[in-house]
């Protein structure tokens, strides 16, 4: 052996370091491992087997150098392998990257009709006040819709209700018609339930009104009925005030004005303070600060009697208003027809 300027193992180390710089792919690193650490042809393996031929006095130093080389090769390969894997993974991910700003695949979003949303809000408010929810048929008899509610036959008060009649619907009190208000359910409830009664009755009603932005031959009302011993007119006012405070705003006030409905006595028009302008005057309240929103009154003794309830012992109040009208108010819907047209662009809104 001749002394060379550099120890041969050191030269190998330099060689490895140079090669390692080039090995960036998983495949190149793998090839590097085989070339240096391969079991039969590997350079490091070769150096180790050369140890046999090294003179005895140099064995220790040579061995130490080879071991140091092996350690560095192993260490470097491990590092290179993980770096190469990381790079491979990253490029695979890059290949799968998407333009996240592209339009998403949106499942269809369903919506409740605003009339349902408003009906539930109304029901919730009244259930909080201890009310049950009742319903009744759309096609009614004259007796339930009018006579039992103290509209005698041929009474001018019926003029207020332009009524649809069913063809071949019979005569007199059995005559079939489309209910003009939800009030017949008052009678149906009283005939089947003893006081105390507290019900709200949302439902569809019909009047022969031409279709325009404020009128529809089909619309929705919510009716309320309370019957018990000792129910007072003040209770009516307090109940409706509580209801409107829940529906609109804790600041809402209500105002009663006398009016006439045959099935209540006294009868009142209920106005609620305009919550849209705090009574300063706006388009919704026509500048008056008040919105006329309901009819109400103390149940007429004749109506109680028609419902099989003793008017001397029990008293009660009833009220009714338009769900469509409340929906229009609450959401600022400009045209009643929108509620029945079912334009998807309208139905898809949030309510």
């Amino acid at each position, binding site marked *: 052996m001749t002394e060379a300027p550099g120890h041969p193992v050191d030269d190998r180390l330099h060689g490895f370091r140079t090669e390692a710089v080039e090995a960036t792919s998983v495949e190149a690193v793998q090839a590097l491992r085989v070339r240096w650490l391969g079991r039969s042809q590997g350079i490091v393996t070769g150096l180790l087997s050369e140890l046999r031929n090294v003179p005895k006095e140099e064995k220790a130093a040579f061995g130490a150098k080879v071991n140091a080389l092996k350690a560095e090769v192993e260490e470097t390969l491990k590092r290179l392998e993980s770096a190469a894997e990381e790079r491979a993974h990253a490029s695979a991910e890059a290949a799968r990257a998407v333009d996240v700003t592209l339009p998403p695949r949106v*499942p269809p979003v*369903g919506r409740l009709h605003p009339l349902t949303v408003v009906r539930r809000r109304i029901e919730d408010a009244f259930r909080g006040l201890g009310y049950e929810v009742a319903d009744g*048929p*759309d096609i009614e008899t004259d007796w339930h819709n009018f006579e039992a509610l103290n509209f005698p036959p041929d009474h*001018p008060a019926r003029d207020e209700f332009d009524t649809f009649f069913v063809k071949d619907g019979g005569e007199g009190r*059995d005559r079939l018609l489309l209910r003009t208000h939800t009030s017949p359910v008052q009678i149906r409830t009283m005939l089947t339930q003893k006081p105390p009664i507290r019900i709200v009755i949302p439902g569809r009603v019909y009047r022969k009104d031409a279709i325009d932005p404020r009128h529809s031959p089909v619309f929705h009302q919510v009716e309320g009925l309370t019957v018990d011993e000792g129910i007072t007119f*003040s209770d009516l*006012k307090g109940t409706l005030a509580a209801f409107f405070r829940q529906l609109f705003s804790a600041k809402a006030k209500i105002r009663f004005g006398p*009016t006439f409905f045959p099935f209540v006595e006294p009868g009142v028009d209920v106005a609620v303070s305009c919550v849209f302008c705090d009574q300063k005057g706006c388009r919704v309240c026509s500048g008056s600060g008040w919105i006329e929103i309901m009819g109400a009154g103390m149940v*007429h003794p004749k109506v109680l009697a028609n419902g099989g309830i003793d008017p001397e012992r029990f008293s009660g109040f009833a009220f009714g208003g338009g769900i469509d009208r409340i929906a229009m108010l609450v959401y600022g819907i400009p045209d009643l027809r929108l509620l029945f047209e079912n334009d998807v662009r309208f139905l898809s809104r949030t309510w």
Partner: protein
Amino acid sequence: MKFRQEWIASYLPGAPPETARLRERLTAIGFVVETVEGDGPRAVLDVEITANRPDAMNHRGLAREAAVALRREFHDPEEGRAVAEGATPAASRAKVVIEEPELCDRYSARVVEGLAVRPVGAAVGERLAALGAGLISSPVDATNHVLWDIGQPLHAFDLDKLEKGEDGLPTIVVRRARPGETLVTLDGVERKLSPEHLVIADAKRPVALAGIMGGLETAISPFTKRILLESAHFDPGAVRRGARLLGMHTDASHRFERGTDPEATVDGLDRAARLIVADGGGTVAKGVIDVRPRVKDARPLTLRIVHLHAFLGMTIPALRCGQILAQLGFHPVESDGAFRVVVPSWRIDVESEVDLIEEAIRCEGYDRLPETLPAPFVPSKEKRAFAFEDRVRDLLVAGGLLEASTYSFVSAEENRPFEPAAPGGPVLLENPLAEPFSTMRATPVIGLLQSARHNVRRAVRDLGLFEVGHAYGRIGTTGSLEERIREERRVSLLLHGSRRAHWSEEARPIDFFDGSGAVTALFRGLGLPDPVLAAASFPFLAPGRAAAVLGADGRRLGWVGVLAAPLAAAWDLSDPVVADLDLGLLSARVPPPPDSVEAPARLPGSEVDLTVTHPTGLRWRELESCVRAGAPAELLAVEAKGRYRGPRVPEGFVKTTMTLRFGAPERSLSREEINAWRDAAAARLLAVPETKVDGIPAPGA
């Protein structure tokens, strides 16, 4: 109804009220002043008078209310004023006979002779013109003035045109019209009459429609010299029926229909007679012909003050109650904590104690009413209508559908194809708004089709809509409502276009399975077993793409399918999928919430596929029941994995791959067990003629 400020003020002694204050106070006590035109004495107020208050449909009546509202005195300046009469008794000039005392309980008449027909005086003319009444002549305008003044409708006949009776006197007969009689009314229209009409006749023929309008022939003309003034009290129902039959509505009928004051007839005659003579000269014959077959007794009522307070939930001092009642003409007498009153003859609306309570609180002011709440009450959980419908709505909304709301009536033509879907025969309206609204719908699907067309015409084609509503059917012609009409609660669905269009894939058009899937999802959402979908034929659905939706008990709960092509074309829609379910039947089948729940199996189950080649006519339901029949409890589900038709499948056959899912709660299943079960299932499938199972030799092969 229009009122003149100055006219109201004529009944309120002292300075006339300010218009703004009058408006506010009248509104507060129940007479809503809708508009005011002009200002000062000439102001005209448009007041809404409710149907129960005909007594306030005139200036004196409204002034009486205004006096209470303004807390002022009320005074009728003409009360007690006499008429200057001549010497000739009216009874020697005309005669009145009431043949229908039930329909006319008072007919009063005066005769004025020797007058000239001239225009009415300026003051009266100005008043009437301000209310929009046309001016005709003094006698006619005078009667009109009385109507607006005190609410008594009058009519003036030309006495010389009334036919005489056998006694030689012009005769007024209040009777029913005879069959075939006619009358040309003041408006020039010939009216055909029947015994349903109450008429005023002379000795020969009808000369006026009682309470509605006079006849042309006997009307006042420029040449009239002698007048018979009529002032009567008619039955409201009789006038209303007569007016309705003829489609007429007049200022007179409006009041008579609502009820006039039977005590006001003579006062009305006197006021008119004074005006007529003042304008046209002449002499008022002596006395009033006043035929009154029946006199209604005065109506006493009692108002208990304790009851008033209990009813209102507030107190009104007895003194104030007394004032209010007195001012309104009730002549209250207080004793033993109650007011005894006599209802004034003009207050036909007041019938009972509660009406008196209303008078007190109305005039006291509703602003004073406190706000209280009734005693607490616990509502029953069961009494909650719409709870089930709301659950259905929420499930469908969660499934991405939009809730619609459509009219309950449709056109007869729209309804006809769907009649088999109705709960009974068609329910038609007698007086629909128009033909498109003539028929109560057989199913809400019709409204959804209208809505779909609306959207498609606006280029919105991808639709998922539902409506919860009623369907109507006629089931009988006599008996109770329930024996004649059947109303069912339904939920209807409509799908159209494609539902999940995205740029990354081709849009898939909606098909039958989207419909049956939506229905099945609803059933699952409600906790119902999956519906049985049975091939069925409905005239409104495409043949072969229609199914009856059956419950586990075989009861039909609804239907689902693709709309029949001709109908779809008529609606401008392409292959809409529609469904309709009976919510009454559905809700009765919904199981209650569980009262004990098993934990899901901890061990994963295993699955195995079977591919069957079978005739196209063999339905999935049959394949599935074949696999399930005799299968062990460990078979949890049978699912369709794929269907294949292609070159290697013979014509008329299809290949269906089924996935059988096995599992047991407490143990894991061995491959051998599963294979044995699979082979048993395959053997059952192979027993069906013409079937082959991949990988399993046919028996005997």
